[in-house]
């Protein structure tokens, strides 16, 4: 703890530039809503994000963007306006990557951030983890060839940079996000050769009529993308996957195949397609390392992802730590916004800034329930099936950073006796590279569990989700942080 008088002068006023009631980690749909609602209730808020602009991945945009190609842009604008209205109580720390959050007695939280060359440290009485999610990937032969992008990358290049990832593009994977990506690329001028959905048609969630009826707007969005695909005559194939990418220096084509119910390749159904770009994604992986650092309890969600457990107030199992958005379960921007709003109000109330409008709380909770039902229906409609584990060859790389193959992972299990993802990691280094298992963690968990005859457990996924240092930092930054914590 600090000992000098200056450093001790912490919580008595709300005007210390480094002390906040609420630190919101992430400025996407959930974080923006959280910051706005906490500040509206009177809390002093730090809104931290690695990006230059707010909006997160979902509303990633360029300076002066008119929002024409964005979904829910008016929602983004109203969240931004809410933040501007409370500007005196919100500090937006743009370009700040959080590498560690420490829990101090109180509780009080110390948020350690890097700004690339510099660093910044703030203290907060509560934390709202709104760190979002990124594309989930399954390895297949050739997926490391340049020209293979995540679906999110193709989207980010287009929305954030105004650049098409390529000219002749195949979109593949699972989930409704593929429709949004394909529609965006086609409208942006690319030739989209086809969309290959490994699962069934998106209408299969019509089995959940109640969830559908309550979320007609979201459904309208899907119809909008489908119309764009039809206008550009883009074929949409279900029960089909890209099982191989071709090319050495860069992508020259892909092999698609029809899949059975469990996603095993149906023999003889393979087809070669020429393309220079593949945009691929199999749902999303919530970004959970900060929640894990803070000791939040986790569970397995419907899509097999590790997510944080929260109560009706979005409070996690750790006192003072709230979690909102995809980190509590992948559910789309609309659900993220309402969760963020609830988390912001809860955190503000916990720091003595109770929102006064009791009626709004009930409305928010009802909205969250309806959106959550729809999100669950979507996750259940697009599960990843285990047959994908037949797609890679023995020499297919699973860990892109450390270049560890399927064969080496199998060897760690069968020859060296590794029984869980952590042991495999220690024996053959998958997940030990710079990305710290963010990209391959899910696949490794599946492969290890499969060899042991089960599906990945919470413990398996936790073994690849813990990252004590969430972002690369210099030894100097680490040493200075250590010095602060022993002062």
């Amino acid at each position, binding site marked *: 703890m600090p000992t000098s008088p200056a450093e001790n002068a912490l919580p008595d006023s709300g005007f210390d530039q480094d002390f906040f009631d609420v630190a919101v980690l992430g400025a996407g749909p959930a974080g923006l809503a959280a910051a706005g609602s906490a500040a509206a209730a009177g809390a002093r808020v730090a809104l931290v994000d*690695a990006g230059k602009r707010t909006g997160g*991945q979902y509303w990633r945009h*360029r*300076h*002066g*963007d*008119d929002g*024409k190609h964005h979904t829910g842009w008016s929602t983004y604008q109203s969240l931004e306006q809410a933040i501007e209205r409370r500007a005196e109580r919100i500090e937006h720390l743009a370009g700040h990557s959080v590498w560690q959050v420490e829990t101090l007695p109180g509780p009080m939280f110390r948020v350690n951030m890097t700004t*690339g060359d510099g660093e910044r440290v703030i203290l907060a009485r509560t934390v709202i983890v709104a760190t979002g999610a*990124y*594309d989930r990937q399954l390895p297949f032969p050739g997926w*490391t060839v*340049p*020209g*293979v*992008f*995540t679906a*999110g*990358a*193709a989207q*980010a*290049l287009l929305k*954030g*940079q*105004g*650049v098409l*990832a390529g000219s002749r593009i195949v979109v593949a994977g699972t989930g409704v996000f593929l429709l949004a990506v394909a529609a965006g690329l086609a409208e942006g001028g690319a030739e989209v050769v086809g969309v290959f959905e490994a699962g069934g048609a998106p209408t299969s969630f019509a089995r959940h009529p109640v969830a559908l009826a309550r979320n007609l707007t979201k459904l309208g969005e899907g119809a909008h993308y489908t119309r764009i695909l039809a206008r550009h005559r883009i074929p949409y194939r279900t029960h089909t996957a890209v099982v191989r990418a071709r090319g050495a*220096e*860069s*992508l020259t084509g892909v092999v698609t195949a029809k899949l059975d119910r469990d996603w095993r390749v149906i023999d003889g159904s393979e087809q070669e397609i020429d393309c220079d770009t593949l945009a691929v994604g199999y749902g999303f992986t919530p970004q959970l390392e900060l929640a894990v650092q803070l000791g939040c309890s986790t569970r397995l969600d419907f899509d097999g992802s590790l997510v944080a457990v929260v109560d009706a107030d979005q409070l996690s199992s750790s006192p003072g730590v709230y979690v909102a958005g995809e980190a509590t379960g992948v559910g789309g921007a609309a659900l993220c916004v309402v969760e963020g709003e609830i988390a912001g109000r809860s955190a503000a109330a916990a720091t003595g800034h109770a929102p006064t409008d009791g009626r709004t709380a009930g409305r928010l909770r009802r909205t969250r329930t309806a959106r959550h039902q729809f999100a669950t229906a979507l996750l259940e409609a697009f599960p990843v099936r285990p047959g994908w584990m037949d797609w890679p060859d023995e020499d297919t790389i699973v860990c*892109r*950073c*450390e*270049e560890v193959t399927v064969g080496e992972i199998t060897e760690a299990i069968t020859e060296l006796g590794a029984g869980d993802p952590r042991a495999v990691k220690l024996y053959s280094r998958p997940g030990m*590279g*710079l*990305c710290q298992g*963010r*990209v391959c963690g899910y696949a490794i968990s599946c492969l290890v569990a499969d060899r042991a005859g089960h599906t990945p457990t919470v413990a398996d996924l936790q073994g690849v989700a813990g990252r004590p240092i969430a972002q690369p930092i210099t030894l100097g930054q680490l040493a200075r942080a250590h010095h602060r914590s022993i002062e």
Partner: protein
Amino acid sequence: MSGTSKATIQFSFDGVALTAVEGQSIGAALIAAGHRSWRTTRINGAPRGIFCGIGICFDCLVTVNGRPSRRACLIDVQPGDVVVTQEGAGHADLAG
């Protein structure tokens, strides 16, 4: 605002002069110029470029103004940037 043309910036990649739009990432500018890769891996020497595009995967590492392992998808092009292909960890100068 949108639709108006933005200032272009000059930079170089492996000695060849290129232009980027102001505010564009190095990765996006390289993709726009038709490049697919700007790094070879430490172990297999395999080419890599952008994969995740949002700072998660570290595939797009590149050497900028002599400093290796910068994420091309995250950092903006600055006027006069000297960008070169990164081989391995980009520290061959420290060997021997």
